[in-house]
């Protein structure tokens, strides 16, 4: 499965990219994070504290165990600080 990944705020800065396309066999967001962590240290750093990571799939907030089936875009970012 091919996914568009997008990163915001310090997740984007740690990974060094605003977005990228990845191929994955992961079934859930957690599985995808595990795959990314193993790629390079900058991903391992970005995902070192999952309590500080929020996820949206196809622009909807989800939990880390959310399934990836049918998903096109996954966004990773810190807790939001709007307002």
């Amino acid at each position, binding site marked *: 499965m091919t996914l568009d990944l*997008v990163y*915001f*705020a*310090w997740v984007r800065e740690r990974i060094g990219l605003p977005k990228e396309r990845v191929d994955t066999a992961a079934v859930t967001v957690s599985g995808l994070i595990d795959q990314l962590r193993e790629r390079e240290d900058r991903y391992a750093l970005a995902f070192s504290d999952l309590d500080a990571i929020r996820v*949206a799939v196809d*622009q*909807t*907030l989800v939990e880390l165990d959310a399934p990836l089936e049918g998903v096109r*875009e996954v*966004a990773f*970012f*810190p*807790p*939001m*600080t*709007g*307002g």
Partner: protein
Amino acid sequence: MTVRVEAEPFDLALELATFGQGAGAIVTFTGLVRDLPEGGLVYMEVEHYPAMTTQALEAIEAEARTRWPLSDCLIIHRFGRLVPGAQIMMVATAAPHRQAAFQAAEFLMDYLKSRAPFWKKEVTASGENWVESAIKDEDALKRW
């Protein structure tokens, strides 16, 4: 019922000129960039997730409208570089009575604080700092 996400400053007076006609109560909230306690803020950079932001705000607004009898509702949130004193965002609510207008405005603020995809970075002469979310902001959602 309007949601806008934009870089430009907004004019509260212009926004309110035609807002909430026929209502008994209008509440507005305006958020402004404050300097740091120790001073020295050069600007605040507000980042957002363009593909998601508007729909997230619209969902929050729709939820508010199911809870209170709002005759009008407005959310404007800016992004980009904002200097101290600049407006960051505003909400406005119009309802028959004050309780609904106040509660809806507080609800919108509590939700967009923690559920709309915005992030703030403070930039000073000596460095940058991403604003961390406050536990009290997450706790604020529990009352609704």
